[in-house]
């Protein structure tokens, strides 16, 4: 009996979390005057709103920008953060623990403080409206370093020693031996980094003004706020849908990993 109540509650809850997206999908396909109808289906489904979005803003360009930026950052973070995490966990050198403390410290600094000087730095370097501004400040992730360090600490010492004796350099050890055996960590850091970079909208809003360099969430946000959608709800929703779909697709494929990653980091938190 209790079970049935649980299932009912869960189903209602699920509906509350999923229905809005269903509504959004159908609403974006409906002509303007039918937007507020409750019933999701309509006789007049069309892609008109989507076409309008394509005509008004270079959303494909924005998508590509997001892709370039998020991928570059993710790859960089995986390579660099794992390298640093390895050094911090398996190598001995003076100042190692100091550096670790510094990294912990940086994680506690709220971004509000560094936001403006970082912007100024971009201006001085002439990096506003460039890919560098979006990518470089994100190339190393303190969170990533932490996670890798934790994970690598537990790596079997014997394998590393054996490789050392074979004359393998530490770089070789890291990339040729540890990496292939650390897929869960790589996936965790990779997914979280990718997702956070993709959804990040404050930083692009600050350093990018040219539409040709805007990221997708930034462009959709400005499209909605800036009046180019001319207060047409269907068009706004269509642009939002286009922003959501890539992540949803990735989510559906990697869903288990997503959730496991988040839970995993939570526990270690």
């Amino acid at each position, binding site marked *: 009996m209790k079970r049935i109540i649980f299932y009912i509650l869960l189903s209602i809850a699920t509906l509350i979390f999923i229905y809005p997206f269903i509504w959004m999908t159908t609403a974006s396909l409906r002509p303007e005057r039918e937007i507020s109808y409750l019933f999701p289906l309509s006789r007049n489904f069309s892609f008109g709103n989507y076409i309008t979005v394509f005509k008004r803003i270079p959303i494909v360009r924005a998508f590509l920008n997001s892709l370039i930026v998020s991928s570059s950052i993710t790859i960089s973070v995986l390579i660099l953060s794992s390298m640093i995490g390895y050094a911090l966990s398996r190598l001995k050198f003076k100042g190692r623990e100091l550096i670790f403390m510094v990294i912990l410290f940086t994680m506690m600094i709220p971004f509000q403080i560094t936001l403006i000087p970082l912007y100024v730095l971009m201006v001085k370097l*002439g990096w*506003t409206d460039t890919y560098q501004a979006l990518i470089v400040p994100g190339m190393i992730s303190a969170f990533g370093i932490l996670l890798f360090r934790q994970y690598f600490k537990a790596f079997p010492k014997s394998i590393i020693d054996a490789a050392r004796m074979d004359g393998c350099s530490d770089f070789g050890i890291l990339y040729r031996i540890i990496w292939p055996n650390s897929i869960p960590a790589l996936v965790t850091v990779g997914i979280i980094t990718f997702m956070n970079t993709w959804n990040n909208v404050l930083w692009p809003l600050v350093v990018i003004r040219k*539409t040709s360099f805007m990221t997708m969430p930034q462009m959709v946000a400005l499209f909605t706020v800036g009046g180019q959608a001319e207060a047409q709800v269907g068009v706004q929703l269509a642009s939002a849908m286009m922003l959501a779909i890539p992540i949803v697709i990735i989510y559906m494929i990697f869903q288990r990993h997503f959730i496991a990653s988040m839970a995993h980091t939570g526990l270690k938190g």
Partner: protein
Amino acid sequence: MLRLIKWFTIPLTGILLLTMNIPLQAGEDVVKLIYWPSSNPQEIALAVNIVDEWNKTHPNIRVDMQPLPASQSSEEVLLTAVAARTTPDICSNIWPGIVGEFAEANALVALDRFKDFQDVTLSRMSSDILTNFISRDGHYYQMPWKGNPIMMEYNVRLFREAGITNPPRTYSEFMEDAKKLTKDTDGDGSVDQWIGVINVNPVWWHRFFDFYAMYIAASGGRTLFKNGEVDFDNEYAVDVFRFLQEGFKKGYFPRGTLQGSQFLLENIAVQFVGPWDIAYLEKYKHEGFEYDFAPLPVPDGTPEPILTYSDPKNIVIFSTTKHPEEAWEFLKFLISKESDLKLLIITSQIPFRKDLDIDSTYKEFFEENPKVLKFARQISYTRGSDNVTQLKEVFDVIAQAFEYSVIYGMQEPRESVMNAAETCRRILRR
């Protein structure tokens, strides 16, 4: 003839843009200038036309046009350029509001240092208009170029059907007409036709098109500041607040944000816009749609002429230029009679020229476009915005007072205006 120019210019743009990329073979004595127009397609087409004409007739001074990148705000692009010292020689998309900051940062060339400054400017515009744009140190850092005077656009048919012959001149007339024009047309119990619409978003620059324009009209030409001091805590500002507040209280203006172009859909009878709307309406209007323009409504008893806000865009020469004299020559070309005519034809925006309605150069154009003529006549009766560095903040304060008092009716207009003025004084003292 005029139509030819208009029709061929925009397609020619593409070809010209291509040809302009061919490097000049000339040697070291060719002066190169970089010019930034705005990013709006008509202005780019205009720029291409003018620059091409110039390059043909001035082989020693070559101008390269680079459109300001399409972005959320051209001010920020310019700001970044100034900070990084990558500014062009000339830019013609300058909102006067930022001239103050730029001048203080020594980013602009003072135009009145050129010997023929007085002659050139006063032969084109009245001194009234020119002094709008003087900077705090008494110099002129911008050349008034064009404006979009804000007037009242009204739906002729709706007014006629409501039995009103003339558009409202005063606030009381407006309210009377509002009563007749605001109603529920399809009987579903909720009002769906209003006399007008005011943008309810608390964004500071919306207020240029309602409060500020009407304040200029009501006060006979006062702006927010006088001699750098806050000056708008007066009856006129209160009158405007009260007028608009009443409009909201009585439901004559809709509360929420509506979708689509309500004026075209004939759900609102009146709009406060500039000449840019003509091109839009001409493109999308349906059979039987009639519209016209009239000056802004004013408090009862305000004498003519009725002024308004000019929504100006001006030209500046940046101090990073290596050739100020040549840049000045090009600037003069940008504001010549012929260039002004092209401005009218290609963009429907109004140059700051005092003789538009009598000079024969423009006669043909206005015969074909009588509605634009109304704006052309209005341009000599406009005011710009003050040359105060903190102008954006000031407008933000006003926008918030506006939201509080006018839109939500939560404060008396007088109190609202006085508080806003006080806050602005504090801002200026910073």
